[in-house]
């Protein structure tokens, strides 16, 4: 019996392991190392209505046990996604596909959601209102409770697909925002998106990143991510997709104990491309050793 079987806010998954948007491209980039279909779900790179070139200049900087990125949502836009990317995905990918959905205005979010809603093969929507790398929309939306609520409500109205709202950790009171987002129709909360960070090149006397600030991720941010998962678990009744620095089975278990029903692996895939396979195997082993009926037995156990 598969002890990792999970239904995450309506999405049936063979295990609670997903990829974090933006770290697993368009689903097939890591196929040389493992079959992406072993994943419970693949969360694709952030998508926008129109194509985006992303930010100019250096986009990647390493920091102690972490990294900064200022990709700026580079993506080919919805039309290309529907006509080309989805076709390519359908050829090889059988597991769940989740779109990471972005907009510059509430109207854009809604319009893109309406379009995505029509693609049957998409199992769910991760609504990204927390990207730190774009001027309009993104984090500015997620950090403002009113707008976070409004965009959730309006998107909810136009789709029946499971709606996972991804929140920014760069706020004073994330529980409050999570609760609002729940009240406005979200089926799950994804936490955390990247922290806002910066790196400096002292030789050039300039920021390393072309965009000055970047999204901070990787093992370094794990303590913040765990704290936020723990806080939000207390605040909401919908399930949590936990992420932020997971680099081992042990880390994944920590997130689940804090309250995550499923977890996304991100930056640490760069370090160890086999991480997803290792974590799935690791969780299976853990279930056996701990004699769990299902991995969900440990979800939120810290609160009990």
């Amino acid at each position: 019996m598969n002890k990792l079987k999970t239904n995450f806010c309506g999405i049936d998954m063979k295990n609670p392991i997903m990829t974090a948007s933006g770290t697993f491209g368009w689903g097939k980039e890591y196929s040389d190392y493992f079959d992406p279909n072993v994943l419970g779900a693949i969360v694709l790179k952030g998508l926008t209505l129109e194509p985006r070139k992303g930010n100019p200049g250096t986009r990647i900087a390493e920091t102690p046990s972490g990294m900064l990125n200022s990709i700026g949502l580079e993506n080919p836009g919805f039309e290309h996604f529907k006509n080309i990317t989805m076709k390519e995905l359908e050829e090889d990918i059988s597991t769940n596909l989740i779109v990471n959905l972005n907009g510059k205005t509430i109207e854009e979010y809604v319009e893109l959601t309406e379009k995505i809603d029509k693609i049957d093969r998409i199992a769910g929507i991760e609504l990204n209102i927390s990207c730190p790398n774009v001027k309009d929309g993104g984090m500015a939306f997620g950090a403002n409770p009113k707008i976070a609520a409004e965009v959730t409500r309006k998107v909810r109205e136009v789709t029946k697909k499971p709606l996972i709202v991804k929140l920014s950790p760069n706020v004073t009171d994330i529980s409050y925002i999570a609760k609002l987002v729940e009240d406005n129709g979200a089926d799950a909360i994804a936490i955390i998106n990247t922290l806002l960070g910066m790196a400096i090149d002292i030789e050039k006397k300039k920021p390393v990143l072309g965009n000055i600030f970047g999204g901070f991720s990787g093992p370094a941010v794990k303590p913040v991510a765990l704290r936020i998962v723990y806080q939000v678990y207390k605040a909401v009744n919908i399930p949590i997709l936990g992420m932020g620095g997971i680099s081992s089975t042990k880390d994944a278990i920590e997130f689940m104990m804090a309250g995550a029903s499923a977890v996304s692996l991100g930056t640490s895939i760069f370090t160890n491309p086999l991480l997803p396979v290792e974590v799935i195997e690791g969780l299976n082993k853990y279930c056996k050793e701990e004699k769990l009926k299902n991995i969900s037995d440990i979800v939120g156990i810290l609160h009990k």
Partner: protein
Amino acid sequence: MAAFLEDVKIIENICLGSRYYLLKVKSEKIIKEIKAGQFCMIKPLDNALILRRPISIHNIDKENGVLEFYYETVGKGTKELSTLKAGDIINIQGPLGEGFSINIKDKKIAIIGGGMGIAPLKELIKQVNKENKVVFIAGGRDKYAFEILKNINFKNTIVVSDDGSIGEKKNTVEKLKEILEKENINMIFTCGPHIMMEKVAEVAHKNNIYCEVSLEERMGCGTGACMGCSIETTKGMKKVCKDGPVFNSKEVIK
């Protein structure tokens, strides 16, 4: 084309002088697939360094199952690498990216390397030298930067340096122009500082010569997944790690 993660044992890791190192590792999987101009991502041992370091393949010694890398210590990752010894194990990911066009014949080729840009050129020269006529122009900052030429061991090498302390006193682009005045070159391959490659490409374009450049960008994944190394090209956004590092110069310069 497949790529692998491979734990490889270090056979040799020697300093060629100053900050320049030659690393040799035993490989079984990657060696079967890797080609000139492609690269590997090397995992630092220090866990505080979470990103793998992109390093070009310098030489593929299939006979002995040995991959060679030529690198310079610049920061924490390469400094750590330089402390490793024969017998130590490192994890490398590769082969990555698209290399040079090596299936060519009966051409006159100029290969131009500046500084660390020399790294991928040994294997390239080996591949194209037999069925083509090759001239290799090598530029460098100091005498240590030329130590690697012994390992490349290619007779038709022209050494140039800005101050004339080694070889001719000119830069690689000047040398290229000089050659073009005398000879009919059909192809140019170049790797080195971006500004040098721009100038080489300019010369190539002016003379209507097909030219390939090997680019460098900071990388997250090395697989095309993170969009960290994207650049604008005439064919849209491309990834240096997957669509490159080697590009037709017309696509990426000017």
